């Protein structure tokens, strides 16, 4: 049983459990929020998906039939990815849905993002990184999930397979296709002089 499972065990009384849950959530929150933002490409929806993710985690932990978890980080990542995939699937039916305009989105992002470590990194992450994030729209849902977990979280293929509930061969196929579709962006990211 992992450390987190000890800390988040159902045997704890509710108040202690809330505190323990809070400190674990604070440690995972930024990563989960950024994962949701990259998956959903929408700031407000990512905020909402992050909240849903931790709410689902809390509800799962408080179920009497809850089983021990080995890796709480991977477990919550799986919840987050599934939450995002559900939202992306339901988005297909929301033909009336409108993306916030570019200016609004930019101002929201500026509000949320603090100043980076140095100007070069900001430009690096800002220009090419942003282009790559936007290009994720080209990918199918599974390709997007597999690529996001590999590219941004450096998850192994076995971990991605577990998170997405797929076999490793399928994960490889999704990654191959994702890399092919993102050919130009990845070229500029890694090989542009």
């Amino acid at each position, binding site marked *: 049983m992992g450390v987190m499972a000890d800390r988040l065990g159902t045997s704890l009384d509710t108040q202690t459990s809330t505190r323990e849950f809070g400190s674990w959530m604070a440690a995972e929150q930024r990563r989960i929020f950024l994962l949701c933002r990259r998956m959903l490409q929408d700031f407000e929806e990512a905020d909402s998906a992050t909240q849903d993710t931790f709410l689902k985690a809390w509800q799962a932990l408080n179920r009497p039939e809850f089983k021990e978890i080995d890796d709480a980080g991977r477990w919550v990542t799986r919840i987050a990815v599934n939450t995002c995939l559900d939202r992306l699937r339901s988005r297909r039916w929301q033909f009336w849905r409108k993306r916030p305009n570019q200016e609004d989105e930019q101002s929201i992002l500026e509000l949320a993002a603090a100043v980076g470590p140095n100007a070069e990194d900001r430009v690096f992450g800002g220009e090419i990184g942003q282009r790559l994030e936007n290009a994720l729209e080209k990918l199918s849902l599974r390709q997007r999930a597999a690529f996001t977990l590999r590219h941004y979280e450096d998850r192994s293929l076995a971990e991605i397979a577990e998170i997405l509930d797929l076999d490793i061969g399928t994960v490889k196929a999704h990654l*191959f296709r994702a890399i092919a579709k993102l050919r130009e962006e990845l070229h500029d*990211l890694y090989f542009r002089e």
Partner: protein
Amino acid sequence: MKHWTENDFKEWLYGLKDEDQHLKECAECRGESERLRMTRARMMELPEVSQEFLAAQRRSIYRRLHEPRHTWFTLRWALPVAMVLLMAFGVTLQRARRSAAVISDEQLFSDLTAIEQSAEPKAIAPMHKLFEE
């Protein structure tokens, strides 16, 4: 000696290609792989997110943790089920009305005879009315 291509490097970066003998022995390719590894490491650094935003998000999550589930949540299936039942009832009612409206054979023959014996179609009758004084 054939150097690794851009595709080889991309596949290697994303775990789809293993290091081979060439990469181990070729200084040029080895150097390129190191450069790419560093670029990738920089890309993986999580961008900053403001503490105020994260704190507000946590507050919102805490609020939701202790909210009782809404009644509508437990009854979320009630509306679709009610709509399906209503539609099924409507279809049944429609069928019942149709079967009640079936005319008898006697009435049908009588109507057909009347049509056959009529000199002009019934639809003309309103036209005649127009010219009546």
